Every structure is written in C-alpha cells, then in structure tokens.
C-alpha cells in the first residue's frame, strides 16, 4: 500500500480529490447508494409472499434472522474499517474459535470477568500481532492474516485437544447471546450497539476519515500527516477484537465452545460488507450497508430453508439470488 509518490500519483490524487467532491454531492442523488436497502426489502417481500404459510413472517422468525446474523453483522462492522483502509483480515474465523474456547476454559476454571477478559484479550493480542507484522515489516495483510488464520486455527484445535467446552455460567450465557433485555434479545442489542458505534466513528469522527484516506491512497494520506501505520494497526486490532466478541457471543448462544465455531464466517462477513457497498480495495464503505448485507445473507439462508428445498437446491438458489442482488446493487456505471 505504500506507493511512493510519483508524478502520475500526484495527478491521480488531484483527480481523485476532484471526482470525490463531485461524487459526494452526487451521492445524495445516486439511487445506487440506496439500492441495497431496496434489494433487502424486495427479498423480504419475496419470501413474505411465497412463504406466507411457512412461518416466515412471524415475529419469532424475523427475530431469529437478526439474532442468527448477529456475529456476522458485528464482525462486518469492523471489516468495513479494515477493507476501507485497503487491508484485509482473513484470520477472523479462527479468532472466533480460539477466543470462544479461551473464554469458556477461563470461565470454567477461574470466573466470569477473567473469562470475558481472556476471550477479548485473545482477540486484541492476535490483532496486535497481525498489525505489527503488517506495519513494521511492511507485509501485505492478506498474507500475514492468512498465516495467522492457520496458526490460530491450530491453537484452537490444540488448546482443548479438540474437545468442546460447555458454558454453564448462566450470567455469561445471558449477557452473550442467550438472554433478553426487556423485550429484546441481547444479540440484537449487541448488533445495534456495534453498528451505532461503528457508524459514528466511521462517518463522524476523524478516525473514520483517516481510515478512508489510508485506503484511498496511503502515500497521499501519509503526506497529509495521517499516521498510516497506526491506522492499519488499529483496524486490524479492531477486527480481531470484534471477532473475539463474536466468539463470546457464539459461546453464550450455544452455551459451549468448540474449535469449529466461526469456520464458515469469513466469506459471509466479507460478502456482507461488500454487498453493503464497501469497496473491496479500500477508499469507501458503509457500516449500515454492511448490516443490511449481513441481513440479506441471513434472510436468504432462512427463506430458502423454509421453502423446503434440498440442501443442494438451496445452494443453487442462494447463488442465483445473490447474483441478482449484487447485479442490482453493485453494478458500476459505464465509464
């Protein structure tokens, strides 16, 4: 990402600056920015009509969708920052598994607060390792996190020798995923909190602007005084810590942890983020969009199961509907 400034680079920066100011103004008018919401509503409407007799539109089922996608939505918030900064974090799925196991073991052997701290601490530590390799050694995050993905998965497998660990602490289970606060399941509150905080920092705080500037053009960002390395370190710590939080939520919801948790999450998270309008290669994004992206993936999965299709047919239908959805939302205008 550290491209030395060249004459070409300067030209493109000027152009980027110009086009961005125009596009910012245009965005208010550009319907494509809102198409993801429309696509989500269309998918909801489609299933509400076709599955009206199959329990899709019950409040239980709709709450289910939000609860089931909570870990994905929460990780997606952090990954918006990572992708916006022009980086990627492939280790999040493995972090989910390891942090859930660490939390469950410490919770069982020591207690509630140490368990939570150990789980989250695992995420912070892995994020710091990822971040330091990327910034100090100037390595691509793709390769660094690919390596730590394997390393962390191996640790998760060995820490309890593949055994699952049950979570019997009901306070932990209630706070992280199994309980309700008033009429709201705790998972929904976690999701809303993550999205609200994420959106606030992404859109309304300097940190978000620095992240976007870093992803747009790291060299230019550095020239303007942004501490690019610090931004990269921060987003990688953020994503690993959020993955650890997702691990705690899984452990609370399933009342147990095992080495396979999160194994199917990485692509779902990245898909949710990109569907939600974040560029895969940095420079722009949307936290609320990522939440909608996650809900789209969850709704598709839920609706297709309720439609009674076989597992293979569900995969095909999911692929087709996803292609349709992204054709609507992510189509680049002709140059």
């Amino acid at each position: 990402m550290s491209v030395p400034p060249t004459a070409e680079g300067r030209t493109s920066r000027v152009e980027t600056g110009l086009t961005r100011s125009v596009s910012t103004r245009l965005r208010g008018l550009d319907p494509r920015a809102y198409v993801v919401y429309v696509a989500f509503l269309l998918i909801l409407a489609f299933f509400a009509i076709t599955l009206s007799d199959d329990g899709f539109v019950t409040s239980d089922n709709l709450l289910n969708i939000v609860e089931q996608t909570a870990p994905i939505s929460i990780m997606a918030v952090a990954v918006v920052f990572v992708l916006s900064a022009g980086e990627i974090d492939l280790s999040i799925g493995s972090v989910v598994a390891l942090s859930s196991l660490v939390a469950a073991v410490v919770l069982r052997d020591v207690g509630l607060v140490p368990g939570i701290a150990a789980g989250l601490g695992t995420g912070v530590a892995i994020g710091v390792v990822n971040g330091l390799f990327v910034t100090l050694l100037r390595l691509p995050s793709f390769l660094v996190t690919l390596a730590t993905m394997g390393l962390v998965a191996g640790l998760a497998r060995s820490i309890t020798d593949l055994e699952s660990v049950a979570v019997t602490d009901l306070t932990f289970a209630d706070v992280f995923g199994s309980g309700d606060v008033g009429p709201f399941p705790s998972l929904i509150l976690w999701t809303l909190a993550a999205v609200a905080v994420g959106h606030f920092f992404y859109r309304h705080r300097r940190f978000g602007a620095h992240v976007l500037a870093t992803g747009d053009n790291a060299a230019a960002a550095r020239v303007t005084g942004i501490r690019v390395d610090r931004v990269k370190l921060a987003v990688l710590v953020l994503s690993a810590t959020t993955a650890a939080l997702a691990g705690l939520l899984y452990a609370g919801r399933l009342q147990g942890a095992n080495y396979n948790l999160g194994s199917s999450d990485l692509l779902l998270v990245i898909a949710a983020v990109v569907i939600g309008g974040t560029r895969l290669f940095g420079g722009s994004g949307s936290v609320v969009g990522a939440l909608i992206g996650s809900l789209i993936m969850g709704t598709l999965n839920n609706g297709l199961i309720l439609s009674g299709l076989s597992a293979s047919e569900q995969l095909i239908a999911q692929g087709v509907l996803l292609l349709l959805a992204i054709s609507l939302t992510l189509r680049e205008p002709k140059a």
Partner: protein
Amino acid sequence: MRTHRLIATLATGAAMLVLAACGDSSSSDNEAGGSAGPAEIKSSKSVGQTTGPNGEKATPTSALKLSVAEIERVKAGGYTAALTWHQSSDFTTAVTAGAKDEFAKLGISIVATTNANFDAGKQKNDIETVLAKKPSVMLTLPVDPVTTASAYRAANQAGTKLVLLSNVPKGFSQGEDYVAVVTDDLFQMGKQAADALAAAIGNEGKVAYFFHDASYYVTNQRDQAFKKTIEANYPKIEIVADEGIADPNKAQEQASAILLKNPDLDGIYVTFSQPPAEGVLSALRNNGNTKARLVSLDLDEPLALDMARGGNVTALVTDKAYELGQAMARSAAYGLLDKKAPPFLVAPATTVTKANLAEGYQESLHQAPPKSVLDATK
C-alpha cells in the same frame, strides 16, 4: 473456510454382520501375500463392540417393526418432518433417500432439509429456522454434542420429536428428550477393514495407519476399532506409521512422506475415502507403488474404479446409509405413536471388494455403481 469443506466430506459407517467376501490381491507383485489369487477375508475375533453414548447395548435396525394398524394411525396424523444434517455428501443423500421413501409409506411429508457444514453455530441457526415450520419430527445428526444441545432443547420445547443419527446432545436422555439414536456399527466397520487388509497382505507385514485427527465420534470409533483389531488379532502385522490426518485435503503430502520413509509398506488403512484415501492413492501412484494394499471406509468412485481395475485399493468397508435413513424414519413413527423404541439402533456394514461391487453399492447407497466403475469390471 476451507476446513469445514474438507471435513465436510466425512461419512459414517458400521456393521453387525460379519461378511466374508473375496478380497482382491490380483496384483502379481503382492509379495507379502505370497499368493496372486484372491484372498478370502476371514472374520477375526471381535475385540470390542459398538455401544451407545451411555453404554446402551446395540439393537439391529431390523428390530424396528410397525403393524399395519400403527402405520394407518401415523398416516392419519398428517405429520411433517425436518431433516437437519451436519453436511451434504452421498452419505446424507442416501440417508435422506431412505428416510424419504419410508416417510412416504407413513404419509409424513418432509418440509425442510438443512446442511450445517459441520458448524455448530450454523446448525443451531438451521434448527431454529426450521422450527418456524413446526415439524412433528426432526431427523438430525448433531455436529457437536455440547454446543448444539441448546438448539435441540428448543426443538423439544416446541414439541418436535427428535431422532438422532450417531451423536447425542449432552445431557439428553432417551424417551424424554429423544426417541432413539441410530448409527452404524462403528466397531464392526473398523474391524472389517482390519480383516480385509490382513487378508490382502497374507496376515503379515508392515502397515501404515492414517487416522482422522479430529474429535469426531464416528471416525474416532472406526479408527480405534481398526487399530485394536490389528494389534489383538494379527500379531505378525506391524503398524510402522501412525499418522493423524487433521486436514483431509493434505493426506497426499502426508502419504508421500510416509512412503518415502517406508518404501516396503505392505498395507495402508485410511480413515475415510474422500478426500484422504484418494490423496493417499495418488501418492501411491506418483510413487509408482503398486505393492501396498489400500483399505478405506465409505464408497467413493475413484477408489472403487481403482479397485475394479485391480489397483492398490483392495476393499472399501461401507455402511448401509439408505437403511439408516429408513430406520430413522421408522423410529420417528415410534415417537409419534408414543411407542418405546430401542434406545440405540445400529445398521450393519458391508465390505465391498472387486467381487461384489454392484451389490455393495446397492446395499449401501441404494443405487448402481458409477458407470466408470461398472465398465472397468467388465
């Protein structure tokens, strides 16, 4: 992402019956066996047995019986079923087919089918989702006894009867929380693999043992049964390599290393066929090794083709997956009728060799062997 797909190709298996079939050692360079003709697989003494999760004694699936009046009562109920599987594979396809055919006879319609890709989190989501359709019964293989238990509790509370395949959620008891658990005769499967490999190498020689290095009831039981049988019943067979396969897609690399260290191997056991045994077979081919006999568990086209052509593969021990599905559906009817089912049911396994390929496919998956395999046997 890869890992779950890799693991997702696991299958179950087992056997009550001891089968004497013909092993193929047609390869003329099978020096260890000392004979070029087919070796008869003899059943050795059983040094263990498949027991239920709480030590229950196994009952053969053939013991499940429904009277005409009972079938009529189930039919009149207008019941529905959901299938929440751990993965998709030809194994789950065959179990599903068996269940579907049996459900059709019972007038029960299948309203949802899911695949968790071995992810406990996804399986919990799947279960919650299908509960929206209020199925009367659920046939399922719990990915993990600990982390899926809360989801099955929810199914219980919704009044859905559970019939389990192979795994039992932690803290669940038969009769109250589930109707019955059905599985393969896992010990017999491993034992039959040991007997088949021993026959192929003339009961003596050096063997490599590739086991599944994961916490997974089905493969763990089968692998241990193989090893126990070899150690107890075949004193002249030496396990010279004890290799755990953690990532089934990397078996080829592991096998290449083992072949390099042990060029004089007589036999190889691989925990399951696709993908690890396929990987081991390609390592053998790359190595130009036509001597080592290969035995694995579960049917698989490339391995069956090699066996049909008289290659390294000498036997594939497989379960009767279709029959498992039928037994699960029938157990579901027991649950709906409030009739007490045997707690732990096992479906028999079968040893498939070149001599009984067509029958083996029929017994296990309820279908003919792939065309390539049939052509090769002609």
